[in-house]
């Protein structure tokens, strides 16, 4: 096997081993996926990669003159630690790309497990708008297997709604599989929970919105000075989520900070409205005059 051009310096996990142990029963409902996860962790250990659990990331260290990363600093519960490295990959869980459902006028509800507003759908994938069917991670993070099953189930619903005879036993089986997977999904959330005190500890100079360079401090100040208590108002006043990514990267973080700064539960601060075009389009790609 060829050696990779890079080596993993360490894996830092905000979740603790206790979280993962507590989630094991729920995650065993999908033994194959669970085994894959255990295998990955084992592989990392076998290859001598340091795994640190229960950390609180503090900052990325960098050489500003050269514009490159030099290391990462975190708190392990007892003390601050640093590690030299050349690059950092960072993320808190996944979020759904719900903009299409939003533009189609689908109703959204707050989903506590996802800590996000998600389009409402029934077990077959029917949205609140007639003729709209939802499947996959765009309607709630469930993974690739669930996306396939939900897509098939939604297709069956679409056919049935249009008077085509479908295999109802297959539809019921898919719904059962999806239901079981929902239990696994809850387990996953238990094993790798979002640090609940993240917003409280995010420093003022933390850049929340990278497209528009908006810091957590700016967001807090906007709340304090202008009384913003809702996401779209915060966006209008501070430009958070107004840039190229349209809040896909920063919307969740900004909502957490807004909820914390205003003392509201997350569902109260709302969500950024979807805007067409969902992904940036080059203006040169507009059809020339006269084209249909």
């Amino acid at each position, binding site marked *: 096997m060829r050696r990779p051009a890079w080596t993993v310096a360490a894996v830092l996990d905000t979740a603790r081993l206790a979280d993962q142990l507590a989630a094991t029963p729920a995650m065993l409902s999908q033994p194959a996926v669970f085994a894959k996860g255990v295998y990955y962790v084992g592989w990392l250990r076998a290859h001598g990669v340091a795994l640190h659990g229960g950390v609180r990331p503090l900052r990325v260290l960098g050489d500003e003159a050269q514009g490159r990363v030099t290391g990462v600093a975190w708190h392990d519960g007892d003390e601050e630690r640093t590690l030299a490295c050349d690059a950092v990959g960072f993320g808190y869980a996944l979020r759904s790309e719900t903009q299409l459902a939003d*533009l189609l006028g689908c109703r959204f509800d707050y989903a506590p497990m996802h800590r996000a507003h998600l389009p409402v759908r029934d077990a077959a994938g029917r949205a609140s708008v007639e003729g709209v069917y939802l499947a996959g991670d765009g309607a709630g993070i469930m993974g690739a297997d669930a996306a396939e099953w939900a897509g098939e189930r939604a297709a069956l619903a679409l056919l049935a709604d249009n008077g085509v005879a479908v295999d109802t036993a297959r539809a019921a089986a898919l719904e059962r599989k999806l239901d079981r997977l929902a239990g696994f999904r809850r387990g996953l959330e238990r094993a790798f929970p979002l640090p609940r005190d993240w917003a409280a500890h995010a420093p003022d100079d933390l850049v929340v919105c990278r497209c528009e360079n908006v810091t957590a401090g700016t967001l807090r100040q906007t709340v304090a000075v*202008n*009384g913003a208590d809702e996401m779209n108002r915060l966006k*209008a006043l501070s430009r958070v989520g107004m840039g*190229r990514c349209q809040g896909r990267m920063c919307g969740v973080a900004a909502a957490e900070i807004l909820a914390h700064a205003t003392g509201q539960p997350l569902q109260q601060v709302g969500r950024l409205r979807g*805007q067409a075009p969902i992904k940036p*389009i*080059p203006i040169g790609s507009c059809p020339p005059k006269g084209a249909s």
Partner: protein
Amino acid sequence: MGAGVVLLERDLCGSRSSGVNFGGVRRQGRPLSQLPLAQRAHRIWGQLPELLGTDGEYIRSGHFKIARSESDMASLERYRALSSDFDLGLELISAARLRTQCPWLGTRAVGGSLCLEDGQANPRLVSPAFALAAQRAGAQVLERHKVDEVAHDGAFCSWCARRMRRARSKCRRPCCSTARAPGPAPSPPSSARRRRCAAQPVMAVTEPVPHFMDWSLGVEGGGIYCRQVARGNLVLGGGTGLTLGRPRARRPRRHRHARGAGRRAAAHAAPCAHHPHLGRHRGLPARPRTGARPQPHHARPVPRLRLRGRGLPDRPRRRRGAGRTGARRAQRHAHRRLRHRTLRPPARTKHHHLSVPSPAIPT
């Protein structure tokens, strides 16, 4: 001692048309009948930091109206002569000078008219700042209060908002409604077969591009408008989108951007559009009704409404030789109703054709 003011806003101040518009702040091109008011507004815009505590990114960058033909140029010349009493400082710019100054405009522009003291601002900052300033000045600003009903019993004006259904509030002052289309009222004929839809300007914001333009641009006769903000983003608009059913101001269905000079300005830096929105057309404000008894004053412009019958084209136009179709009749009917409800706009001046409806009215 001024008047006690209660301001009821169905959503958040500045979250709709006054906060979502092009952001041009201009006098040039307005009908002469509007110019005294525009001049007054111009002075107020100059005092924003003192009045609001923020400049709302207002700058007097100059507003340039492009002429695409000799007749456009003649029209701009005529406007300059007619508005000479108002001291707008309009300066006509020749094609040759334009080529030197703005080569990216291309060859279709045959000149234009510059109003150096007109400018641009950021409406999403200015509008909420006005609400905050009003609050500081003692106004009671009630946001998320949709007004369902306004009445007057001779001594008191009372309103009923959804959140205050049980506790009607009263005030001694006449009410002033500034609702705009497609606001809560008035309703068109409630035929199930027809839907109200309002034509609205379509705009977009690009990602920041290197600075190349100071002026806020418009085109004589309408078409496109464009400006570049200090951060480098281009704000451009042109054409109209349709609002279907419930207000979908932030959910545009049609985009016809970046045509003509706008396309050229945009292509100059090949940016990406990431933030289009529909603004609001703003017609002429209606004149308050006078009468012995205080009435709610509607400052709403007569909305540009179209009625759309099921299966009819988006823009029902009367074809030559065709009789009055149902949709056409309904449209006329709706306009009549609206006029009765909202009061007539000021009589058109003979120069009215010089103006184009634009979302860029200072708010």
